[in-house]
């Protein structure tokens, strides 16, 4: 192991990860009842998924099609369990591998596109995947798949909510650790360079297409893992629950509200939006079943009007702390990062 790869373990994001891990453990230990366990499970799972999605966004690749990977993982794990009796613990990784393969197949044509063109192309392919799964008899077509309730560790089905909570916390911490390590690594530096200025990165010798594809495949793999967890939790999946436009939107909402392309942005977004939806549901659904969605949508729109650059960016401007960089960088790299960050600030649409 070289000195460079050791020093990454001391980098800012990994230290922050340790703090987040301690906080997560405290939350899991102190959660008072099953209602809060369910909410916390959802936060961990979706914060992990949005962080996985966000790894592609390190390089500026905003996907609207990650439901294809989530759904692909969920269906793989569930079908292996139902048809072949393979434990979901293995099925989860099989689902991740299938999702990674899908990510490669989707990334290869789509990553030639940029910006919104990439997003809409991935959306189209995830819709195509949804319709194929919804019409295929092997995958249960429109009826979906039911998982029989057989509690047991080997089946990844738990009697109590605590089992699922631990599982989702583990998933969340694994994804965010990988995300932090990637962000601070040379690979992450290349990705950030691509996001700031793809041509400049290419000229400086970064193999941009390969880096983008690698990030996309890693992101798809980690998203696919969550599919099996969700399926074993719900004990039911159909294309609406795992493949829909609603799922695609969630990745985007958490990522953009928190702060796109930062390690902790998607987590911040999920930690704000998921409890918000719960609070609105608790207080507004006395009026009508649908009213809370209306209020939630209105709050989303108002929030982005108040914080158009995301929560993290707003916090940073509030504290205005001097930036610290503990990863030692060569002089060229420092110049490169400085240029990248300048460009990052300039990529906003001028008004």
């Amino acid at each position, binding site marked *: 192991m070289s000195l460079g790869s050791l020093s990454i373990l001391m980098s800012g994001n990994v230290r922050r990860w340790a703090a987040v891990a301690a906080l997560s453990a405290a939350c899991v230990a102190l959660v008072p009842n099953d209602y809060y366990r369910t909410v916390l499970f959802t936060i961990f799972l979706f914060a992990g998924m949005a962080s996985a999605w966000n790894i592609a966004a390190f390089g500026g690749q905003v996907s609207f099609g990650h439901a294809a990977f989530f759904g692909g993982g969920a269906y793989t794990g569930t079908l292996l369990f139902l048809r072949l009796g393979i434990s979901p613990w293995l099925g989860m990784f099989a689902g991740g591998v299938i999702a990674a393969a899908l990510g490669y197949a989707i990334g290869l044509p789509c990553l030639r596109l940029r910006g919104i063109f990439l997003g809409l*192309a991935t959306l189209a392919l995830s819709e*195509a995947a949804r*319709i194929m799964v919804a019409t295929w008899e092997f995958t249960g077509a429109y009826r979906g798949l039911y998982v029989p309730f057989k509690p047991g560790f080997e089946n990844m089905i738990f009697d109590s909510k605590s089992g699922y909570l631990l599982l989702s916390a583990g998933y969340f911490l694994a994804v965010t650790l990988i995300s932090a390590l990637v962000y601070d690594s040379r690979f992450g530096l290349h990705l950030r360079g691509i996001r700031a200025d793809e041509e400049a990165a290419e000229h400086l010798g970064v193999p941009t297409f390969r880096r983008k594809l690698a990030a996309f495949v890693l992101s798809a793999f980690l998203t696919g893992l969550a599919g099996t967890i969700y399926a074993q939790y719900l004990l039911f999946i159909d294309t609406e629950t795992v493949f829909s436009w609603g799922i695609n939107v969630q990745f985007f909402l958490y990522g953009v509200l928190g702060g796109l392309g930062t390690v902790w942005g998607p987590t911040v977004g999920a930690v704000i939006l998921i409890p918000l939806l719960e609070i609105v549901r608790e207080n507004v659904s006395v009026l*009508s079943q*649908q009213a809370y969605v209306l209020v939630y*949508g209105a709050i989303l729109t108002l929030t982005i009007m108040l914080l158009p650059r995301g929560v993290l960016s707003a916090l940073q401007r509030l504290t205005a702390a001097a930036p610290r960089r503990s990863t030692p960088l060569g002089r060229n790299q420092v110049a490169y990062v400085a240029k990248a960050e300048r460009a990052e600030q300039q990529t906003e649409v001028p008004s």
Partner: protein
Amino acid sequence: MSTDILAQLVVSGLLLGGLYSLVSAGLTLVFGVTRVVNFAHGSSMMLGGYAAVILQKALGFDPLLSLLVVAPVFMLGGMGLEVALVRPLRHRGATALALAFATIGLSIVFESLVALIWTSEYQSTKSVISGQIAIGPASVALVNVAAFVVAILISAIFYVFLRFTHTGRAFRALSQDKTGAVVVGLNRNLLYALSFGIGIACAGVAGTLLSPFYPLSPFAGTHFMIVAFVVSLIGGLGSVPGALLGGLLIGLVESLSNYYIGASYGTVVYLLVFVAVLWTRPAGLFGASGSEEYGLQ
């Protein structure tokens, strides 16, 4: 025999395609001029359909008559949307992604508002125009033909407007070069609001035209939004003529593959056609070369 089926499929595909063209022309105008990806476009179209339902229930309006109400109201609504939502965001230095976020929030509001009033029961309108009409060997409902004719007529007016009027030229100037357009003295704020107005009006009118023969639900817009994105990207995002031809093309592909490959595979086939087009021509069939570089940063 099989040519009869083919003719039937081609005609019904083109009829649906006409509506796709109209929705997509609105979406692509908004993107071309303002660079906002409007995720509320599909739900605006759905609202247009429900507006026709309300007008029929309350006043007994025929959907074709409702157009005269829906078009101006949705135009004003679209302009209001630009002034109240998009402009403040732009002034606060919002990225294109933040703008997309805001339109997603808005589409959630639209959908749940309709779901609140009508639950998820399907709604539709009845038109006085009923009966079938023969087009060559094909036979189609007259109301579909009427909807198609109106949609194509509006699209044609739209095209002539962009091509030959001063405002139309200003729109095109603004979508080609923002700074240049402002330097030569175009009122950018007014044009942004107008483009949103026209775009949303197109969506609303398409929804009204659809209402006699398509069961409306609060979430009916999602399908049309995805279609509109596909159509405008195939035609070249920002290119109105591209959207018009792309709509007809997608309607045709959908109708033919639904029959020859399998029900609901129509969507899968045109989505794959879409990716193939983007693979070979990232700027779309009619997009200016390099226009795929615009987009979200």
